[in-house]
């Protein structure tokens, strides 16, 4: 019995690797803290460790889905795929932090350590199979995020961002736990599978208690993905934090939250019940609101970083729309959307970060005439903006198309229409930056040091998937879809 418990540890290698990596980096950091030159070894170690984790996840792919550690954690292809995407995002953010001037030189290694810690939390959340691991995952993500948001110690905006994040996080975690305790009180177990078995057999009174409880339960996760009633922290935190941190926040906690939400929805509400109708209705309203609020508020922004923050809210809304379909097609569409979203976000934030490092702010005007100085970078930014809008033949189009298709297949016409209209709205502010880069005369002729040859190469390499996923998406989808993507 006790040995059975340990026998599963083979499926848990990626998380163990990450934990060892984090502890090792803390030791390395304390050793080489004073030494400017040796600090790059820390970065090299971090990148090697992350790549090793990626390889371990790749080895986990295609295996049979199983619940390990007394059903506390599920390892399946869905969570493994999203974990791989999260690792990619982390590698991107770590590389960005290496040359960004927004993070203090002496704190760069700490950024890496905290990023890996948050990644561990994301892994836990993506494969949580009971309330306890779910809560632990959310809190591991959150607690390190508070510190990371206030990484710029001397900037009061950064401290304010961290504090806001911490207070919102505390309140929403409290709400979530209040909901959880009611769910536990009615159903009598914290295991997700146990809850799923009970859901179709509930009496009307129990359902009346559970509906608000699930609403409260959603608060915790909705805060993590910044969906609408709980999105207010997001633009402030994104603007106040250093840009590499913002890049990281736009990817890892959001995707981890989406993964957790997909799992909850798919396990709890697989069978028809009044609860399912309530939950799907809630998700439809929240998804439509999230998309619309994110897009409409993004229009008026002056800072590109803040604009991207609002646009990331609307992307979370689109992923929520794919989630309510609740079949394999919808879930596959969400995963595909997550993959494309990572690459688009990384490229956009890289370019914004480099421009911001040069001029000290990231207003739209700083981008004027970028095409005359750095034609390659301006073209890459244009490609990514087209892709974020959802224009063919780029990856963003295919991702949106898949979600709309799965919505129409399940007769959610109204949400599909809302999604389509929102794409039109988003075109306004995404194409605004393209217009400014191409049509406005440049402000000055200065060279931007950040656009060195290596960085340009990295940005180009990250843009390639935006093209290839847009054109060869069927291959990728069938590769991801051959393995049974889902859980039980």
């Amino acid at each position, binding site marked *: 019995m006790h040995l059975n418990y340990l026998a599963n540890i083979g499926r848990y290698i990626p998380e163990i690797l990450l934990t060892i990596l984090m502890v090792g980096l803390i030791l390395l950091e304390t050793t080489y803290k004073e030494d400017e030159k040796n600090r790059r070894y820390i970065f090299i170690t971090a990148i090697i460790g992350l790549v090793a984790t990626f390889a371990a996840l790749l080895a986990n792919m295609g295996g049979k889905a199983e619940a390990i550690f007394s059903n506390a954690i599920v390892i399946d292809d869905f969570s493994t795929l999203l974990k791989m995407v999260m690792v990619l995002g982390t590698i991107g953010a770590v590389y960005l932090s290496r040359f960004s001037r927004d993070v203090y030189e002496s704190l760069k290694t700490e950024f890496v350590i905290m990023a890996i810690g948050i990644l561990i939390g994301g892994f836990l959340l993506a494969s949580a199979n009971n309330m306890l691991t779910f*809560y632990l995952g959310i*809190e591991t993500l959150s607690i390190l995020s508070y510190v990371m948001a206030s990484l710029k110690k001397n900037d009061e905006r950064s401290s*304010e961002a961290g504090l806001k994040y911490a*207070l919102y996080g505390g309140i929403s975690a409290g709400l979530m736990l209040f909901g959880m*305790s009611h769910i536990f009180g009615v159903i009598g177990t*914290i295991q997700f599978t146990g809850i799923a078995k009970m859901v179709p057999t509930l009496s009307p009174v129990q359902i009346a208690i559970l509906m608000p409880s699930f609403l409260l339960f959603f608060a915790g996760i909705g805060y993590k993905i910044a969906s609408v009633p709980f999105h207010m922290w997001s633009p402030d935190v994104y603007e106040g934090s250093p840009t590499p941190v913002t890049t990281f926040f736009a990817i890892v906690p959001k995707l981890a939250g989406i993964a957790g939400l997909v799992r909850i929805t798919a396990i709890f509400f697989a069978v028809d019940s009044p609860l399912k109708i309530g939950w799907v209705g809630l998700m439809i309203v929240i998804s439509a609101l999230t998309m619309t609020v994110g897009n409409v508020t993004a229009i008026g922004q002056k800072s590109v970083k803040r604009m991207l923050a609002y646009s990331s809210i609307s992307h979370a809304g689109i992923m929520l729309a794919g989630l309510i379909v609740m079949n394999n097609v919808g879930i596959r569409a969400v995963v595909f959307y997550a993959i494309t979203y990572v690459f688009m976000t990384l490229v956009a934030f890289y370019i914004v970060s480099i421009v911001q490092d040069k001029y000290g702010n990231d207003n739209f005007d700083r981008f004027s005439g970028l095409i005359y100085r750095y034609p390659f970078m301006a073209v890459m930014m244009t490609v990514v903006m087209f892709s974020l809008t959802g224009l063919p033949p780029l990856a963003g189009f295919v991702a949106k198309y898949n979600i709309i298709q799965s919505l129409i297949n399940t007769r959610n016409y109204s949400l599909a229409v809302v999604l389509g209209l929102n794409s039109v709205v988003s075109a306004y502010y995404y194409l605004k930056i393209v217009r400014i880069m191409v049509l406005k005369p440049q402000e000055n002729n200065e060279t931007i040091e950040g656009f060195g040859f290596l960085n340009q190469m990295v940005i180009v390499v990250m843009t390639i998937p935006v093209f290839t996923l847009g054109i060869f998406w069927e291959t990728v989808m069938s590769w991801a879809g051959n393995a049974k993507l889902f859980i039980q």
Partner: protein
Amino acid sequence: MSSIYYYLSAFLFCLGLLGTIFKKDLISILLCLELMMGGVSLLMILMSRATGVLESQLIVFFMIIISACEVAIGLSLIIALYRKKQTIYTDDIKIITE
């Protein structure tokens, strides 16, 4: 008998929630957060007693540890902000949105 404890925990939770919304200084907000967590802990233990399953008592242990971590980080962030602004009132700390 146990319904009294239910009302007590709900009361504590609501008190904490209202406090986090309406209080104006950061230390009180953190204290109200703790009050919320206290209410939820009581409810978790109550539910465990009502259902006879111990799982939710397990969550309480983790909750206590995690909310302590949260408050520690919250306090350190308040100190960091206080050093710059010399204030802990939320009305005086609104830099980003302006």
